[in-house]
């Protein structure tokens, strides 16, 4: 299953890109597991995902909890807590 990852703020800066296509193995079933798997792919990913408690997620552009299943997702976003307004 390939999915488009999008990153914002310091997550994007640490990874070094705002968007990438990834192909996680079938054993990865939730966003939290996807984060753990992605953390292995580069030192930048490891730095961005070192503290999962500071991450928020969106699945197909809607905010979701980090333990949400990824089955059928086209786009998953990872970012820090929002600070608009």
């Amino acid at each position: 299953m390939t999915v488009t990852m999008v990153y914002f703020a310091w997550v994007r800066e640490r990874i070094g890109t705002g968007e990438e296509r990834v192909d996680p193995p079938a054993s990865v079933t939730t966003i939290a597991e996807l984060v753990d798997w992605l953390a292995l792919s580069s030192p930048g990913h490891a730095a961005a995902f070192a503290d999962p408690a500071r991450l928020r997620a969106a699945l197909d552009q809607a905010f979701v909890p980090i333990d949400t299943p990824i089955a059928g997702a086209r786009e998953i976003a990872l970012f820090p807590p929002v600070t608009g307004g």
Partner: protein
Amino acid sequence: MIRIIVQTAPIDLLAEITQAETAGERGAGAVATFTGLVRADDGVETLELEHYPGATEAALTKVATGAVERWGLSAVTIVHRVGPMHPGERIVFVAAASAHRAASLEACAYLIDRLKTDAPFWKRETRGTQASWVEARDADKDAAARWTS
């Protein structure tokens, strides 16, 4: 009528307020507005706003729709700037229009409280050569939570 704008251009207050006053079939009897400005906290020189195109507009539309349903508003406007800006500049504008003042005043507070926690924006401050991402505040979460009951 719901008007959601995410823009890099400065916010034109008079145009937005006039629009909120006259939107809807019968117009409004009251318009409450909130304007947020960039503060020069601890020597901040530049504030840069990042957003999630598409998802940000969808989240703002959801907040606005919630306010229209709860208070029966004739119009809601949310304008949020993105990109670099400087102290004193307008960063966000919200307006709630209704027949009478109570609904518009309450809805205006609701809109800005919920916008802060529900819409994907991220602030980065620059002081001299030092840039840092702004941390989310518990006080904002508490302010948004008071509307859930």
